[in-house]
C-alpha cells in the first residue's frame, strides 16, 4: 500500500469482486456478439447451390462460458501476481501460502531433483529431458553472471558453449584425454575466449554491445563450420568418448562399472550418471555465483550494472571487472559445452546457432535477471514446457511467444524479480529512538 492516498482511492476501488464480475460479463457479452455469427450459425452451400444453414448453440454457449470463466481467472491472476506497483487484493491465506511456497520452493526443487533418477528410472525420455533442462539451467546460471549481475547484454553466449564442446571433443578424440582432464581445460579455453571478446567491447554498452556479441557468436560458429581440417566442418566431430566414473567406464565391458559392482548392465546407468554429473555442475555454478556475489568482485559486477561512472569514481577498475564477468560467465558456458559434447557423443556447428543464445537469454530474462531460482524455474518452463507442448506442433512457438509477452507485461522483472541483498548487519541492532527522531526533518 505504498501508493499515495489520492491514487489509491482510484485504484483500489475497481479491484473488488464486483469489478471482476463486471469485466467478465462484458467480455462474455462481446464474445456472444462475435461468436453468435461465427460459431452459432454455420452456413454452407447445399447440393443445389442454395445456402443451407444450421445452428450450433451448444458450442456457442461453451465458448461464451470459457470466455467468462477465463476472464475471471485472468483478472484474479493479474491481481494476485500482477505488477508490483498495483494494489493487490490477495486474501490472507493465499498470501501466506505464497510466502510459504516462496520460502520452500528452492529446497523442495533441489530435493526433487536429487530423486529424479530414482522416480523416473524406467522412463528414459524423462531422464533425457531432465538432463537437457539441467544443461540449460547451468547455461542460464552462467549467462546470469554476465547479463543478470554485470548487466552486459550478451547475445553470443553460445560461442562459449561451442568452444567448450569443441575443446573437449577435439582434445578427447585427438589426444585421448579423459573427460575430467578436459573439463577444466574447456572452462579455461572458454574463459580465454570470453576475455578475448571482452577486450574490444569494453567501451560498448547496451545495444552496441549486444550487436558485437551477436557477431562474435556467429564468427565462432562460422569458423567452426569452415575450418574443416580441425573441426570437421559441417560434418562435426563424432565418436566423442563418454565420461567415466574416475576411470571406470559405464559400459558392459568386463571392467565396466556394472561388472565391477556385480550388477546387471543397463544403459540407464550412464543416463543416471550423466544426470548427477550435470546436476553437480549446475549446483557448482550456482554455489560459485552465490559466493562471488558476496565478495567485492560480485558486488562490483552489480554496481557496474547500476552505474559505471560511479564505479570508476569509487576506484573500481571497470576493465578488469568487466573482463572477469565475461570470463566467469564464459567458463561456465565452456563447462556446459564439454558436458554437452560428452552426452551427445557427436557435435556439429548446427547445435550452436543463434537460436541457442536467444533461448538461454530468454531463460535469464524470463527468470528475472540476477535471480538464481528464477533462472532455474524459467529453464524448467522453457525447455520442459517446450517438450510438453510437443503435441501442439507448429503452434508451439505461438504459445511460447504469447506466454513470454504476457509474462513480460505482468512481471517485467521476470518470474522472480526480487533481489536479495548480500550485505547484512552482523548484529541486529536496535535503533535508539533519538536517532529515529532526528531523521524526520
Amino acid at each position: 500500500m505504498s501508493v499515495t492516498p489520492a491514487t489509491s482511492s482510484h485504484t483500489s476501488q475497481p479491484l473488488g469482486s464486483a469489478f471482476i464480475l463486471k469485466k467478465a460479463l462484458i467480455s462474455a457479452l462481446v464474445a456472444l456478439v462475435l461468436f453468435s455469427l461465427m460459431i452459432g450459425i454455420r452456413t454452407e452451400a447445399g447440393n443445389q447451390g442454395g445456402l443451407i444453414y444450421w445452428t450450433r448453440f451448444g458450442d456457442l454457449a461453451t465458448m461464451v462460458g470459457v470466455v467468462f470463466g477465463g476472464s475471471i481467472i485472468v483478472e484474479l491472476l493479474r491481481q494476485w501476481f500482477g505488477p508490483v506497483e498495483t494494489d493487490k487484493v490477495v486474501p490472507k491465506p493465499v498470501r501466506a501460502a505464497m510466502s510459504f511456497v516462496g520460502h520452500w520452493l528452492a529446497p523442495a526443487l533441489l530435493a526433487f531433483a536429487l530423486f529424479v533418477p530414482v522416480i523416473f528410472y524406467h522412463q528414459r525420455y524423462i531422464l533425457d529431458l531432465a538432463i537437457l533442462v539441467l544443461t540449460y539451467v547451468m547455461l542460464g546460471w552462467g549467462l546470469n553472471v554476465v547479463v543478470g549481475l554485470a548487466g552486459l547484454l550478451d547475445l553470443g553466449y553460445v560461442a562459449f558453449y561451442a568452444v567448450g564442446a569443441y575443446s573437449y571433443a577435439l582434445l578427447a578424440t585427438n589426444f585421448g584425454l579423459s573427460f575430467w582432464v578436459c573439463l577444466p581445460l574447456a572452462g579455461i579455453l572458454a574463459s580465454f575466449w570470453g576475455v578475448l571478446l571482452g577486450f574490444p567491447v569494453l567501451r560498448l554498452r547496451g545495444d552496441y554491445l549486444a550487436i558485437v556479441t551477436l557477431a562474435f557468436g556467429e564468427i565462432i560458429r562460422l569458423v567452426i563450420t569452415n575450418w574443416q581440417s580441425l573441426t570437421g566442418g559441417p560434418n562435426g566431430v563424432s565418436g566423442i568418448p563418454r565420461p567415466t566414473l574416475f576411470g571406470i567406464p559405464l559400459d558392459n565391458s568386463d571392467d565396466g562399472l556394472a561388472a565391477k559392482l556385480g550388477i546387471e548392465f543397463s544403459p540407464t546407468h550412464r543416463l543416471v550418471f550423466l544426470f548427477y554429473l550435470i546436476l553437480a555442475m549446475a549446483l557448482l555454478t550456482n554455489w560459485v555465483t552465490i559466493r562471488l556475489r558476496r565478495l567485492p568482485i560480485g558486488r562490483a559486477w552489480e554496481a557496474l550494472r547500476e552505474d559505471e561512472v560511479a564505479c570508476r569514481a569509487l576506484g573500481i577498475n571497470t576493465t578488469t571487472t568487466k573482463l572477469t564477468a565475461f570470463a566467469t560467465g564464459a567458463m561456465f558456458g565452456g563447462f556446459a559445452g564439454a558436458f554437452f559434447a560428452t552426452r551427445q557423443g557427436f557435435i556439429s556447428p548446427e547445435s550452436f546457432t543463434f537460436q541457442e543464445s536467444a533461448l538461454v537469454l530468454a531463460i535469464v530474462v524470463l527468470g528475472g535477471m540476477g535471480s538464481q531460482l528464477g533462472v532455474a524455474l524459467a529453464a524448467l518452463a522453457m525447455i520442459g514446457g517446450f517438450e510438453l507442448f510437443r503435441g501442439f506442433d507448429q503452434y508451439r512457438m505461438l504459445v511460447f511467444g504469447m506466454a513470454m509477452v504476457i509474462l513480460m507485461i505482468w512481471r517485467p522483472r521476470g518470474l522472480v524479480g526480487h533481489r536479495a541483498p548480500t550485505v547484512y548487519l552482523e548484529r541486529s541492532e536496535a535503533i535508539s529512538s533519538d536517532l529515529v527522531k532526528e531523521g524526520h526533518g
Partner: protein
Amino acid sequence: MSAATTTIPLLAVRGLRAAYGKIEALKGVDVEINPGEIVALIGANGAGKSTLMMTIFGRPRARAGRIEYDGRDITGAPTHEIARMRIAQSPEGRRIFPRMSVAENLQMGADATETSEAEREAGLERVFALFPRLKERIAQRGGTLSGGEQQMLAIGRALMSRPRLLMLDEPSLGLAPLIAKQIFEAIRTLNRQDGLTVLIVEQNANHALKLANRGYVMVNGLITLAGTGAELLQRPEIRSAYLEGGRH
C-alpha cells in the same frame, strides 16, 4: 590566504586544459587546495566546474597542465587508481546504485581501497554517526531513498574509503533548502572533527562560500576570481552574478 603560502598544498592544479572533442572546457585552470581546508568552486552552468572535478579524476584526460596530489603527479593516471589514493568523489547527480541496498552501497565505497574488516566497521559507524537516517534505511534499496537521503548516501559512500580529500559535485542540487542545510552542516562537521579536506563545486554560491575557507569563481573555463569565502561574498560582481538571481 596566509596558510596557502606556507604549507604544501594537498592538491595543486596548474594550467590545466581539457576538452570534449573540439570544445575546450578548461582553458588553463590553476587551483590549490591546502590540507584541512574547505574550498568552494562556484560558477554558472557550463563554466567547467564539473569538468575540472572530473579531469582531476582522470576523465576527460588533461590536454595540458599538471595535477599534483600530495606532491605526486597524478596527471593522466587512470580514474580507479586516482580514487585509490584516498581522493573520494561524490559525483554530480549523486549516482548511487539504485537496486543495491544502503549497506551494499556503503560497502562499495570501501571495496576498491584496501580496507580491513575493522576499518569497514569503523567507517560504517562514522557514516551512521554523521547521517543517522542512513542507519534507519540500512536494508532499503538505494533507489527508494529520498533525494536528501541519496545525497547522504553518496557522501557516506565516498567517506567509506577513508579519504583525505573529498570532492563534492553540487551536493545541494535538487534538495529542499532544509535538507541542503543539513548536508552543508555535515560537511562542516567532517572538516572540523576529522580535518577532512573538501573541494565543493556548487551553484548555490551563498551556502558554499559561507561554508568554505576559500573560494574560486569560474567563468568559461577560466578562474576569474579567488579569495576567502567572506571576501568573495562581499564582491559586488559575485553578489550580482550569483547571489541576487543574476540582476544587473
